[in-house]
């Protein structure tokens, strides 16, 4: 089951990172805070940084070093135009998928069930008549 969860998370996490960067540029640590937010999904640096590395390799995000008032400079990540496009397409797709999951996991309406039964019995009568 763990594997299934990991698989499910993989793509969605990428989308969540794109979403966070769509609103505001982040450095690694702040991105972890922003993405995990109030959710109880545990996010670690071991998850976020590899995704960021992959996204920059795909040129969906790019980065820039910015001096910090405190401590060493921070590496800020932000979306490239391609990244913005990808985010729009992916979030639209995600919405469709989320709707689909919501619809299919809901109990089918009892009305539909009766209709199904009716059609079966009609068919049976036809068969008998022949």
């Amino acid at each position, binding site marked *: 089951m763990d*594997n299934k969860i*990991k*698989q499910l998370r*993989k793509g969605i996490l990428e989308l969540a990172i794109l979403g966070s960067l769509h609103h505001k540029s982040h*450095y*690694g*640590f*702040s991105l972890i805070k922003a993405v995990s937010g109030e959710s109880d999904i545990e996010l*670690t*640096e*071991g*998850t976020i*940084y*590899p995704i960021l*590395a992959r996204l920059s390799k795909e040129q969906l995000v790019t980065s820039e*070093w910015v001096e*910090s008032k*405190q*401590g*060493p*400079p*921070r*590496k800020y990540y932000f979306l490239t135009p391609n990244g913005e496009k990808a985010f729009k397409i992916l979030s639209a797709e995600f919405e469709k998928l989320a709707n689909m999951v919501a619809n299919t996991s809901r109990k089918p309406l009892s009305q539909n069930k009766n209709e199904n039964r009716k059609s079966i019995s009609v068919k049976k009568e036809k068969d008998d008549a022949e």
Partner: protein
Amino acid sequence: MPNEFSETVDKIVGNYLNRFKQRLKSFPEQDRDELVKEIQSHIYESFTNDPTENEVERIFNVLDKLGEPDDVIASRMPEAMVSLGKEKKRPLYILAGVFIALFALPLGLGGVAVLFGLVVTLVALIFSYYVTAFSLTLAGWLCAVISVIKIINPYFLDSYIDWTPIVSDPTLNGIITLSISLITAAMGLLLFWFGRYIMRGFKFLISMPFEKIKEMRKKRRLNGISKRQEAHHA
């Protein structure tokens, strides 16, 4: 490192970063600097944001969460791990290793030339072996045919070949040369037949290092894939 760290914390972080840098030795300098700088920044940010009171405990918390340098590098740069210089030389080491095992010859990488020479020698030996087998067979059959004709016609080809008779009787002489010829031809055929086994051994010898290399590559590819998947899944 920033001077906000206490001496102890600075030492711990320094040790971690040194281990990190050591693992990154074979990477391009730019990638290396980027990665180290980002890790440094990350350590600082998490350290200043961690609520743990004890400083030492806090820094260990941060580094634990970050993971061991090997894991961090592997999960971030799966492609880069494969192209490490060390791995490129591996097939040569295997080849050298196989020959050391076979001939007890201590070869370094420079010994690959010696190895090449050995292979050439082997090929030459096998070639001459087959030439011998072929010429024995051909000469044997030719002489047998001539002997048979000479039994019927003792003066056949006398102006071209000069066979000193072994016995004076031409018929008996013919039979003796015929038997010698047939034995020669048989020896040639025997050499051919035996050659199959020699060839089989030779093929095995040649293919062994290549098989080993193939195996290693396959394993490495599988390892790489599973590592990458782990990295993706984590």
